[in-house]
Every structure is written in structure tokens, then in C-alpha cells.
């Protein structure tokens, strides 16, 4: 069984938002909404500053509260790669999953269902990288199987320092940020 995840190199990322634009066109994300976004995290005081730039999106958590709380089963874990998905036809738009996600990864599509990053499963199943990964001009994003020790993502994690977002929230995120 595969377990898809992303490894994003914050050292290379320039926060250009190409990943956000690409998600928009690839997935026809409605105006005013985004499935991914950039966080510019600045610490310190001028001029002694540190900045980490992160491309953020649904973490496809190993322990996904959004799936647990969904009353209809619309939010589910996909068989391929353990990707967390929403079955739009089952969703009643109760927003429980929106409230349950510590990352704010979900929003309600104007058509009434919960939407979020799909890890571009339609591309991945065709053997392509997710749209955001494939466009990133700095090549700072990597996608692959975390359970395969020889995958690019696994080797990067083995060789570089990294962190996840809000690990204390207990969701076991599967997007890792190299520092």
C-alpha cells in the first residue's frame, strides 16, 4: 500500500504562488477560493529576521479528524495512497469537516460541498505529479510514496531536517517542510 505525501523545501521556495495559480487553473477552483496558499513566517526584529516560506494545503493527515467527523461518509480516505478526499455527491455541506481541520484546508464550494486539495489524484493516477508540484519554478516541491523507503520523498526526509505543521494537533500530517 502506498501512502502519498509531499516534501517541500522551504530553503528553495520563494513564495511566488505559482503552486496556487496552477491549482486554480488545473482544478478550476472558483474565484475567491484557493486549495493551497502561502505562509510567510517571519521571526525576529528588523533587521535580524528569519523567514520561512511555506506552500500549504490539506495535509492528507494520517489521523484525519475531517474524515472522522463527517456524518455522511463524504469525507473519506481513498484507497490509492491514503489520499483524503470528499465525495461531492455525498456531501451535505454541514461544515463539520471545515471546523475540524486545524489547518483551515477546507472551504465550501459555492455549489454547496466541501472542497479541498485532492493531491491531484486525477493526475497522480495517470502517473503525473500534482499540478502544484509540476509547475513550481524552484523545484522545491516533491510528491511521492512515504512508505517506499527509496522514493524521493523518503530519501529527502531521511537526509534533511524537517517539520510538519501543528503536530501537537494530533492529526499526523503528511506534508513535510524541509528547513
Amino acid at each position, binding site marked *: 500500500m502506498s501512502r502519498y505525501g509531499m516534501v517541500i523545501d522551504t530553503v528553495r521556495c520563494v513564495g511566488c*504562488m505559482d503552486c*496556487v495559480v496552477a491549482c486554480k487553473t488545473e482544478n478550476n477552483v472558483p474565484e*475567491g*477560493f*484557493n486549495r493551497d*496558499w*502561502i*505562509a*510567510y*513566517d*517571519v*521571526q*525576529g*526584529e528588523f533587521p535580524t529576521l528569519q523567514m520561512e516560506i511555506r506552500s*500549504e494545503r490539506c495535509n492528507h493527515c494520517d489521523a484525519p*479528524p475531517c*474524515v*472522522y*467527523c*463527517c*456524518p*455522511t*461518509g*463524504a469525507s473519506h480516505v481513498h484507497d490509492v495512497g491514503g489520499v483524503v478526499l470528499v465525495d461531492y*455527491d*455525498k*456531501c*451535505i*455541506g*454541514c*461544515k*463539520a469537516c*471545515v*471546523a*475540524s*481541520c*486545524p489547518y*483551515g484546508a*477546507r*472551504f*465550501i464550494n459555492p*455549489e*454547496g*460541498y466541501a472542497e479541498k486539495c485532492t493531491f491531484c489524484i486525477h493526475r497522480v493516477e495517470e502517473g503525473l505529479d500534482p499540478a502544484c508540484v509540476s509547475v513550481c519554478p524552484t523545484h522545491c516541491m516533491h510528491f511521492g510514496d512515504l512508505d517506499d523507503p527509496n522514493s524521493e520523498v523518503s530519501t529527502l526526509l531521511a537526509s534533511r531536517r524537517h517539520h510538519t505543521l*501543528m503536530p*501537537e*494537533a*494530533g*492529526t499526523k500530517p503528511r506534508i513535510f517542510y524541509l528547513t
Partner: protein
Amino acid sequence: MQELTITRHNEMIDPLLHIWGWEIPVYLFLGGLVAGIMIISGYFVLQHRYRHTVFTTFYLPYIALALLSGGMFALFLDLEHKIYFWRLYTTFEWTSPMSWGSWILLIIYPALWVNTLIRIPEPFKGKIPLFDRLSALLHQHPVLIRNIGVLNMVLGVALGMYTGVLLSSFGARPLWNSAMLWALFLVSGLSAAAAFVHLITTDVYEREMLAKADNAFLTLELFVFGGFITGLLTSTKVHIDAVRLLLDGPYAPVFWVFVIGLGILVPLAIQLFAVNHKIRHTAIAPILVLLGGLTLRFVIVYAGQYSTWA
């Protein structure tokens, strides 16, 4: 110093800022009120007060049915994909409190309905023969009636707890990460129900009794609040930040003035005087309690959505 800029910048883009509107607090409030009513009414049934008291056993189940439907309607209004409402009942998701809740709500309807059968009101008598027959059957077997009382109390407790558990199951919202939330909503529901009966009953006994009970509930609520707040305050930084939204953050004025002050302390004081016959009972105290209960739901839901791990 940390400066975090996130490119999701408005309410539409940033769900952290807004998830649920007025519908969910209203739903939770009505749910809590119905829960309280079921417990009180069930208790009266259990105590065989249905033979004497008019109001609680007579009208309460009907009112509860109406209030419950109102709550369900609010929930329905909140759904963004309304035509798929029925999907709630094509599955049972055991990890989802919302799924539990919808099924609990569903079985509450028959429970309230059988409760109404204990004493069918005059205007309805003889209209639906089946109901009359069932009612007669119940009276032949008082144990059934007792069980109806128990059933209503149990489901009432379940419903009251559920309104809190629903929120506290959201690990993502630190303010709701409290095991006291179910107790808080349950007690608040009870006190609201007591105030409600107090407000509209014509029966002196009921009024006196429920005013006293309400005082007890309000006092208890204060303790539960204490537990809720100290629990979060002694937890991690995010939880402290979360509860400070209520204590000295943006929600503090509403919390202290409307929930604690006007919603608990003032009515408690008034009712203490009233039950000791220092002053006459008026509608003021119960109305304050009801409004306080409603505000509580609003404050907890809104501040909870505002609280994050980030």
C-alpha cells in the same frame, strides 16, 4: 516576535475566520433546551406528577417537539447542500458526533410522541382512535409510563450532552477541547428549560419548584464554568490563548456581561429573592436565563471557531 502572513486573506478564502453562522448556535441552544425539557418532563412523569401538574406533562412534550423541529430547521438552514439532507440517514458514522446527533434527534421524536400519549389534551381526545387506544393501554400499565419518563430523561441527557460533545470532538478548535463542555451545555440546557417552564407555566407549584431547581442549575453552571475555564487555563498555550478569548479577549465583554452577569448572576439573585418571597416572581429572571443560554451558545461557537492551533 512572529509575523505570519497568509495569502488566504478574507473570510471567503479563510475558513478559519468563519465556518458556522447563527444557525448552529440556535440549533445547539434549542437542542439544549429540548434536552432540559425532556429531563424535567421525564422526571415529572417518573414522579407521577402527570396526575396533578397541568403544564409540564401536558404541554411540554408538544412544545419540545416544536422546539426540536425549530432546531432541526436551523441545522437544515445551515447545510450548504440542502437537497442532500437525507444523506445523514443513509449511513451511521460511528466516529462522527454529528451522525450520532442526527440519529439521536430522530429517536427523540417518538420518545416525545409517546410522552404526549400519557395525557392527550382535551381538544385532541377522540380524534385519532389509535392514539386514544394507546393512551388507555399506557394507563393500564403504569410501568410503561414510568419507562416513558426514564426514556425521556435518558434521551434528554444524551441530547444535552451531545450538544457539547459535538463541539468538544473538534480537536482543531482549542476552546472546545474541554471535557467540561458537555456538562456545561447540559446544565445550561436544564437551567434554560427550568426557566422556560417557570416563564410560561400557570401552575404555582411548578413555578416555585422550577425556580428553585433553576437556582440550583445556575449555581451548578457557575461551578462547571469554573471547571471549564481552569481546565483550559492549566492546559497548553493554545488552550490558554483560546480561553482568553472569553476572559479578556474580543469575546470577553459579551461573555462577562451577557453570559455570566445577566445570564447567570443577575437571574440567580432575583430568583433567590423570589423563592424566599422577598419579591414577586416576574418574567425578568427566566427571560434573562434563556437569553444567557442562547448567548452562551453563540459565544462558545464563535469564539471556538476563532480559536486555532496556529
